[in-house]
């Protein structure tokens, strides 16, 4: 498999962004550092980019509108694309989403800047939903269980709609 899309994103530097106001809450569900996998039950996401991707998928499944407004006002960059954080699978999915949401008429649909911006706005839209789900874990249910359970319910919803 070629690395077409991951190369595309690595070629220029775009920040991956999550809402600043959710920064603390998000960090509670992400492993403390690379290799910290001792506590996956309460910190189910290995990296912030995994959380970010999950938020995008959530927004899509729930048909949420991308968050508008100036990203620099509400967003906090946690990493840049030129650091090679986005693998080709995720990058392809982001490109697909861009085509689906922006449409073929806009020539900018293939630009990495636009693809990432759309992804950031979708992530910001899905983020509160993901956090709400994680924070409302019933007793004896771990955030990991809760995230998996949430993924399943979203899956059913998305599949039915498509």
């Amino acid at each position, binding site marked *: 498999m*070629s690395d*077409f*899309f991951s190369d*595309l994103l690595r070629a220029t530097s775009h920040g991956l962004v999550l809402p600043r106001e959710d920064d603390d809450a998000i960090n509670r569900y992400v492993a403390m550092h690379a290799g910290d*996998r*001792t506590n*996956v*039950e309460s910190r*189910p*996401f*290995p*990296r912030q980019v*995994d959380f970010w*991707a*999950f938020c*995008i*998928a*959530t927004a*899509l*499944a729930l*048909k949420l509108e991308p968050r508008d407004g100036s990203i620099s006002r509400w967003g906090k960059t946690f990493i840049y694309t030129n650091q090679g954080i986005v693998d080709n*699978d*995720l990058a*392809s*999915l982001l*490109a*697909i*989403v861009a*085509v*689906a*949401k922006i449409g*073929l008429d806009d*020539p900018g649909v*293939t630009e990495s800047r636009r693809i990432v911006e759309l992804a950031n706005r979708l992530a910001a839209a899905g983020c509160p939903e993901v956090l709400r789900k994680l924070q409302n874990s019933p007793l004896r249910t771990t955030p*990991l269980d809760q*995230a*998996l359970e949430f*993924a*399943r319910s*979203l*899956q059913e919803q*998305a*599949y039915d*709609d*498509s």
Partner: protein
Amino acid sequence: MLLIRRIEIVNFACFDQVEIRPSANPKRPLTVIRAENGSGKTTLLRAIRWGMYGEQGLPGNPGSFSLHPAAWQPDSQGIETRVSILFETDGSSRLQLEGKPTNIEYELRRSVTTVHREPSAKDEPDFRRVREEAQLLEREPDGSWVPNVHGVGRVIEELLPWSLRDFFVMDADEAADFVGGSENKEIQRHEVIGKTSFAVRALLGLEVFDSTAERVASLRRDFERDATKATRNAELAEKQAELDHVRGRLDEIEKRLERNRHERADTDERLAQGRGRLEALIGSLGAHDALRQRLTDNEKHTQRANEERRSAARELSNDLTRVEMLASLAAREVRHVEQLLQPLYDDGSIPVRHLPFVKRLLETGTCVCGQDLTSASDHANHIQEVIDRSTEQKDHADHLAEVLDAATGLGRHADGEEWADRTDDHAKAVAVLDEEINNLTQTRLDIDSKLDDIDDEEVENARGRIGMLEQSLSKIDREITSDQEAREQLAKDSNKLEGDIRAARRQEAQARDLERYEETAAMLVQVLRQAYARIQDEQVRELDAEMNALFGSMAANVFDDEAVEDNQHKATLRMIAKVGLRPLEDTSAEYEIFADNSRGRSMPPTEINGASRRILALSFVLGLCKVSRTVAPLVADSLLNFTSGSVRTNTLRVTAETASQPILLLTGSDLESQNEIDLVNRYAGATYTLTGQWQHVDQGGDVVRLTDNRQVSLLCDCGPREYCDVCERLGQAQDERCTRRQESEAPR
């Protein structure tokens, strides 16, 4: 052989006049004297012991036990108490060697008169005994009775030695001394060993053997010394003095060795008790250690399960990052893009596939339709336009083609089933491990609580005590070893000196006779010692096997009932697997009765229950009599106490079958079951019933008739399920198992 033919008791405590004729029928050797508790059983036993041994046979301080009837009012005239025992012996001993007739009948008569005396102190009795007489009569071939020339003491000591009283007149409580005492009486182990060893040595004749060998050996030394003296050689005399010195030191060491052996025996016993306590305390050290091992195993398993679980949870967490899942959430967008781009792909717009072809057309100068493209024409211009536009859109179109390619790839996962299946598998793995961890935790809690039950401090204390005892044991052992080494060295020295002396002396003519004597004595010592060793070795082994067989047939599979209720594990520990007699290590003259549990540990007497102790002592008495071919009466009280069920039946049966003349004092409850009655019917050649008049209904008892209004105990001939005017008790007339004995004799 000694058998009792008649016992007559007159004016002895609660007995007015009583005569017992024990069975002399070898096929029915058993004599049963039935008596309820408090009817005078123990008094009867005392009367017999007094008859045999006099004052020595009575409990308490000399003279304090009142022999006279309770009803007797102290007066100066006094009252005569008399016990007469008629017995027969075949003189199977020294007496036989004196050439006496094979069977001799003796009558031992002992009498004493009790008179009044003013007590001088408050606690003193108001009587004293006068005119105590003991007489031993021997029946001549013509039937007349003449006093025996040897006198009472000597013949009784010869035939019924006091130290062997438990063999002939046995109070089962006292007989338990052979196995470390009864319930309320603990005896030092070396005392027990002394008593046991004495019995073994006396009945097997080892005692006399030993003293003979000892005496001849001492004579041998005398001969040797005299021989040396006879040479009048100064150097030899010096060596002789040295030899005497060495022998003196050897004697000292022997004494110390014996002391240390006793101490060792006592320490050994305390150690066995300590170990028993420890075992009881924690079930067993093994179980304790096994629990600890299980705990360690459990910790290891738990650690492994936790690691596996963490790894399974990591898989689950990784599932959250899989693109299949993300794609399935974006299924709508993926499908939409596929639908959008597929037509563009189909019509060749993406990617731009025609560009190289069209460029080649311009280069070759001829179109596919045949038109010339070298000169500027509309057609050529059009183609150039297509090339320009396509070049401009190429990147865009290539991008979209890649997007379509990706969408087609991800579209395959859009239903999310594959992801869900995989996640399910991972979740199941976690659940399975969760259960395993739960189980392990539960097990751990169980083990913890079991370990909590064990009082660590007590265990440590018990271990500490054992450690200390083991230390003192090893100290004693070291002393013994060093003494043994010294003894060996001294013996060598002494041998060398003997050799030197002998060599020098041989040249001396005067010494020759003495040498011959010495040689003869040496030979005698050799014969005696070897015969001794063989008898001891073989007969003690026979006795050991005999005891185990007897014990087994009386008490096979006896459990300690109390302990069973308490704890099955402890019960097994207390179950006796093997009993017997063994010589004490390292000494040829002392023996000990032992009982090993199923794990081969020697059980201290405190761990053996009352019934087992009695049976063990009885096994020893019966076994020793059998092995030493001793034929003698066994008058036994409380033999069946603490026993029940098959053990009681077997004890009665084995006693009746093994003892030469068992005379058993039994209570009604000893004879409650039909099994015992059957045994009595089969083996008893004589039966008696003893009835205390003070147990009359008017006095709160259950004896129906008052035959004699004095406070006496009456004897009738009733068997265990018979009654008569003398012995009838309430309820017997209605009990269909009991029959009235018609030819009711006058009470004796």
